[in-house]
């Protein structure tokens, strides 16, 4: 296959730092066309393990390091290096046994494992997304990892560590092209940038989120009160109420730094990250549900955050952490509308007829009851909620998995019920809460019918076939 010229690629993710550590040599290819990841990978793993090894040594030394002084420190570093070498050796064995290739059926195959051998076969027709990410240490070597996500149960994510950035991009486009039903040697699809978030906007938006802003305000209040009453007892609480939101703001700032969205024939491509740069490509038709979040303090500028459910992505990463999958962390209305039109073409929320929660729902949700409502048109179901932070969730009928009606004791006393439209796991939950009980049931019954009908006309599995 032809590899795209790195100089022609508009992106500059990762090939920075100017260390000149780009290493020669590509992954080996055997006679059957099976490929290996880059031979330098074990070393990258080894170097990434250095700090962890150091922390482990310090942690288990029971103060020996401090007692011995400089010699202790040297010994700790030595042990960490030995640990890192062991990791390198282990990863070398893993590297020798790891092969990936495309088989005759067009499936993506990966064999791996040292003690337990694993053979995996990914059906590319079920591909959900391909990410190229550069963990911090891999960046020093201009290396990247490719993770491939197919629809399926847990553990449907496959990671290849590490390839040169150029190879990683080429592999991504090859996988995407094969999944789209195109020839696989078309090279990397050209992309056009659509939107980006400036560091200033990102920082301001993160600070002004409702809970964050509330906690920071509370912190200021606590500090003022404790200082005025000249006691210092409250400062402990202030440390928590102030420290926690600041920690979250900093974490998200680092994670979503330089967030850019670009359009390519493979789908929307998101790039972000300060320490670890990530690239996420969402093929068309893979967005399962979408949510517009508008915190109170954002409304002045008309800012929105777009959260999405993408099957198999973001619900739990390799470390088991829940992750929020975003289309964009903050954007103006116009930009957000544009993005939404690209993932859900033809969405027109403004024209919908809203079926609101009855007035008696005030006794269940005194603040947000006026906002609670559901609506639908020929292609999507929508639910809105939230007075302080406004939320609007949208799910296409064709993506509806199941429908539920629930009723708690308090709702029952008021003859209310909530209707939930189930989507694949992700941050977006579609719930029309506290509607009239009978309305909720009828909406649910009708939604089930709409879901069944919409699926009949859905053809987004091989999206570029026939082009």
């Amino acid at each position: 296959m032809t590899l795209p010229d790195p100089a022609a690629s508009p992106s500059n993710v990762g090939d920075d730092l100017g260390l000149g550590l780009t290493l020669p040599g590509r992954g080996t290819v055997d006679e059957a066309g099976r490929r290996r990841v880059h031979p330098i990978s074990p070393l990258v793993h080894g170097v990434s393990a250095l700090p962890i090894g150091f922390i482990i040594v310090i942690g288990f030394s029971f103060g020996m390091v401090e007692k011995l002084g400089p010699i202790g420190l040297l010994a700790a570093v030595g042990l960490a290096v030995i640990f890192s070498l062991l990791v390198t050796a282990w990863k070398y064995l893993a590297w020798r046994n790891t092969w990936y290739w495309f088989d005759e059926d067009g499936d993506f195959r990966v064999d791996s494992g040292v003690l337990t051998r694993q053979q995996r076969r990914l059906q590319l027709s079920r591909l959900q997304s391909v990410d190229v990410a550069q963990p911090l240490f891999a960046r020093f070597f201009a290396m990247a990892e490719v993770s491939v996500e197919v629809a399926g149960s847990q553990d449907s994510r496959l990671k290849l560590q590490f390839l040169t950035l150029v190879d990683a991009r080429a592999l991504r486009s090859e996988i995407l092209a094969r999944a789209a039903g195109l020839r696989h040697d078309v090279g990397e699809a050209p992309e056009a940038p659509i939107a980006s978030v400036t560091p200033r906007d990102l920082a301001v938006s993160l600070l002004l989120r409702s809970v964050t802003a509330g906690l920071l305000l509370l912190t200021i209040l606590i500090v003022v009160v404790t200082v005025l009453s000249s006691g210092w007892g409250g400062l402990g609480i202030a440390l928590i109420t102030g420290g926690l939101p600041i920690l979250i703001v900093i974490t998200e700032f680092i994670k979503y730094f330089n967030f850019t969205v670009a359009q390519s024939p493979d789908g929307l491509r998101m790039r972000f990250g300060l320490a670890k740069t990530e690239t996420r490509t969402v093929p068309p038709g893979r967005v399962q549900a979408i949510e517009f979040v508008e915190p109170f303090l954002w409304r002045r500028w008309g800012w929105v955050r777009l959260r999405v459910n993408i099957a198999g992505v973001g619900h739990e990463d390799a470390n088991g952490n829940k992750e929020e999958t975003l289309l964009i962390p903050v954007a103006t209305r116009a930009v957000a509308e544009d993005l939404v039109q690209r993932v859900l073409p033809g969405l027109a929320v403004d024209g919908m007829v809203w079926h609101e929660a009855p007035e008696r729902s005030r006794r269940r949700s005194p603040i947000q009851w006026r906002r609670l409502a559901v609506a639908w048109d020929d292609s999507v179901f929508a639910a809105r909620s939230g007075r302080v932070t406004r939320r609007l969730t949208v799910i296409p009928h064709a993506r509806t998995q199941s429908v539920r009606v629930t009723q708690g004791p308090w709702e029952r006393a008021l003859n209310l019920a909530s209707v939930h439209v189930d989507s694949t796991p992700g941050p977006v939950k579609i719930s029309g809460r506290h509607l009239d009980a009978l309305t909720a049931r009828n909406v649910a019954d009708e939604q089930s019918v709409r879901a069944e009908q919409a699926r009949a006309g859905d053809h987004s599995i091989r999206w570029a076939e026939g082009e």
Partner: protein
Amino acid sequence: MADRTKDAFTYADGWTAVSTKMITARRLTLVLVYVLVVAGVVALFLIPDVPQAVAWAALATAVIVFGWLWWLIARRVRSFGYAERGDDLLVSSGIMFRRLVIVPYGRMQLVDVKAGPIDRWMGITTVQLHTAAATTDASIPGLEPDVAAGLRDRLARRGEQRSAGL
């Protein structure tokens, strides 16, 4: 078109109820758990430092809770019902927190039939439906094995006919 109902949690053509054997099975589980509780109460009576009043209070609480759970199990089991409609399956359950799940046949990814040791001994099984959504949670417990197998096969066949991507 969907049928209109008078109440949010009923179904016009009536629910298929689950087997009353499940009441016995769940009560058996309750009794097994209570063996431990009784042991705890007996221990309270035997430990000299514990005042008799406390031990008696514990006994009374245990008896009342036992009676309440005994009664609740029957109601919980009777609250389970399912209905196979033309395009989807309805499952209803719950007393305090009522719920109704509607699963379109084409959205089912797999159907599980399973039974624990007590259920197996009592001759009942659970049929559980999975979609691509983790929140679906449509399980029908307390089915006679042949009913469960029949239901599973029907669901699988209908799912097969309508199956599509995500």
